[in-house]
C-alpha cells in the first residue's frame, strides 16, 4: 500500500528517483494560476519540502483558473489555504508557508534554503528579481509565463545554462499594457503551463529526460503549436553579484471598480472575509447610521488620507446610494489600489435588505 507505487514501478523512475524527490526542497513563487497546478502535482508526487511564497488573498476572479480554492475562501490568504489543502492531499510533504511578497530583502535568504525555484509569479518585476536571485544563489529556475492563449516554459540557470536575461535582457517599461493580465486569460492555460513546470522540476531534481535547459518552449493552445527555441547562455548574465535596489514588482489584480451587492457585503461579514469597509459619507450622515466595523473618511478627504487605507486587502467603498462611493472607488483604482469594490445602492440598500433596524434618511 505504497502511495508512490505508480512511480516506483515506473521504468526509468523507480525507488531511486522517488528518493530524490523526497529529499528535494522546492520553492514556488506564487500560488495563483501557475502556482496551483505546480503545487498540486509536486505535492502529489512526493517532493520532500515545498515552500510557498504568496501574500495575496482569494478573489472570486481567481476561481476560473486557481482550482485549489473555494468560493467560500474569498478574502482569505492563499498561502495558508494552499498549505492546508495540499497537506490533505499528501501529509508526507512538508509545506512551508512564506506569507509575504518576494522582495529584495527576503529573496536571497529564502532561495538559499531550497534546491530549485519555480517562478509562478505574474509581473515582470518579480520575474527579474527571481532570475537575479537565482543567479546569485546558484539555483536552477523553472520558468513559466502565460499570455491570453499562449505560454512559455524554460529551465534557467541550470548547469551553467542560459538565464532569463539571456532571452530578455531588460524588463519592459513599467506600467505598460504587458504587466498583469488585465487582458484576460483562458482558465485552463495556466493549468497546462503549470503542469509543464512541475514536469521540468521533476526532471531537474531526478535527472530523467531532457529539461528545457538552453531552450524556450512556446505553446499556442489555440492551434496546438509547440515550438522549442535554442538559446545560448550569455556569460555576463551569470555575473550578477547583487540584487538591484528596486525591481518595481507590482501586485496584479483585475483593474477597475468591481461591484458588490449588499447581500455579498453581508456574506463577507459573516465569513470573516479580510476586507475594509470604507464609508465616505459626511460626518452627520455617519452619525445617523453606520455599519460596524467600518473606516469613516468623508469623500473630500479620502485622497489626502490614502496612507490610512490598507494596500493588501479588498476595500469596499460605501456611501448613501452608491454614487459618491463609485467616484471614490474609481479614484482609488486610478491611484493604484487593487480590488476596489463599490457597494451598490449604498447604506440605504443595506437598511432595506439586510438591517431593518437601521434608521434610513
Amino acid at each position, binding site marked *: 500500500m505504497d502511495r508512490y507505487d505508480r512511480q516506483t514501478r515506473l521504468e526509468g523512475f523507480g525507488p531511486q528517483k522517488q528518493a530524490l524527490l523526497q529529499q528535494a526542497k522546492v520553492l514556488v513563487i506564487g500560488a495563483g494560476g501557475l502556482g496551483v497546478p505546480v503545487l498540486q502535482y509536486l505535492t502529489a508526487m512526493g517532493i520532500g519540502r515545498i515552500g510557498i511564497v504568496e501574500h495575496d488573498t482569494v478573489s472570486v476572479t481567481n476561481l476560473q483558473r486557481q482550482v485549489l480554492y473555494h468560493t467560500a475562501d474569498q478574502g482569505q490568504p492563499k498561502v495558508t489555504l494552499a498549505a492546508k489543502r495540499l497537506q490533505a492531499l499528501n501529509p508526507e510533504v512538508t509545506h512551508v508557508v512564506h506569507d509575504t511578497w518576494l522582495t529584495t530583502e527576503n529573496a536571497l535568504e529564502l532561495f538559499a534554503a531550497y534546491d530549485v525555484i519555480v517562478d509562478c509569479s505574474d509581473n515582470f518585476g518579480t520575474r527579474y528579481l527571481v532570475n537575479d536571485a537565482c543567479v546569485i544563489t546558484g539555483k536552477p529556475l523553472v520558468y513559466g509565463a502565460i499570455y491570453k492563449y499562449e505560454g512559455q516554459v524554460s529551465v534557467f540557470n541550470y548547469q551553467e545554462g542560459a538565464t532569463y536575461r539571456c*532571452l530578455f535582457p531588460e524588463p519592459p*517599461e513599467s506600467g505598460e499594457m504587458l504587466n*498583469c493580465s488585465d487582458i484576460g486569460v483562458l482558465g485552463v492555460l495556466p493549468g497546462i503551463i503549470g503542469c509543464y513546470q512541475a514536469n521540468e522540476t521533476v526532471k531537474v531534481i531526478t535527472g530523467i529526460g531532457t529539461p528545457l535547459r538552453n531552450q524556450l518552449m512556446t505553446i499556442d493552445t489555440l492551434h496546438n503549436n509547440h515550438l522549442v*527555441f535554442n*538559446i545560448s547562455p550569455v556569460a555576463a548574465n551569470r555575473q550578477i553579484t547583487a540584487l538591484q535596489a528596486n525591481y518595481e514588482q507590482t501586485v496584479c489584480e483585475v483593474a477597475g471598480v468591481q461591484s458588490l451587492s449588499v447581500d455579498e457585503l453581508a456574506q463577507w461579514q459573516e465569513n470573516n472575509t479580510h476586507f475594509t469597509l470604507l464609508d465616505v459619507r459626511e460626518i452627520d450622515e455617519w452619525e445617523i447610521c453606520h455599519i460596524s466595523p467600518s473606516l469613516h473618511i468623508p469623500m473630500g478627504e479620502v485622497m489626502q488620507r490614502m496612507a490610512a487605507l490598507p494596500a493588501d486587502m479588498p476595500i469596499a467603498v460605501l456611501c448613501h446610494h452608491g454614487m459618491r462611493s463609485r467616484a471614490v472607488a474609481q479614484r482609488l483604482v486610478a491611484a493604484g489600489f487593487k480590488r476596489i469594490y463599490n457597494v451598490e445602492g449604498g447604506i440605504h440598500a443595506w437598511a432595506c435588505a439586510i438591517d431593518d433596524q437601521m434608521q434610513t434618511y
Partner: protein
Amino acid sequence: MGILLFGVAKDIIGVALLEKPAQVRDVASLKAWLYEAYPGLRQLKSMMIAVNRTYAADSQVINEQDEVAVIPPVSGG
C-alpha cells in the same frame, strides 16, 4: 518562410505572420524596421528574435528561406 509573431507582438502588429520586407537582411535591420513600422513594440525594450528556432543576435543574417520568430516577454501567471 515569413516572420512568426508571438504574444503581445501579434496583438500590436495585428497578425500572426508577417512577410519579410526586402530591406531586412539581418536581425538589426529587422528590429529597426519593426520598431519603425509598429512603434508600440518599443515599450517592450527586450524582444527575442529567433532565426530557424535559434536565438539570434543583432548581427545574424536573415535569408529568404529562414523561419524568423518574434518573441516578446510575457509576465502572466
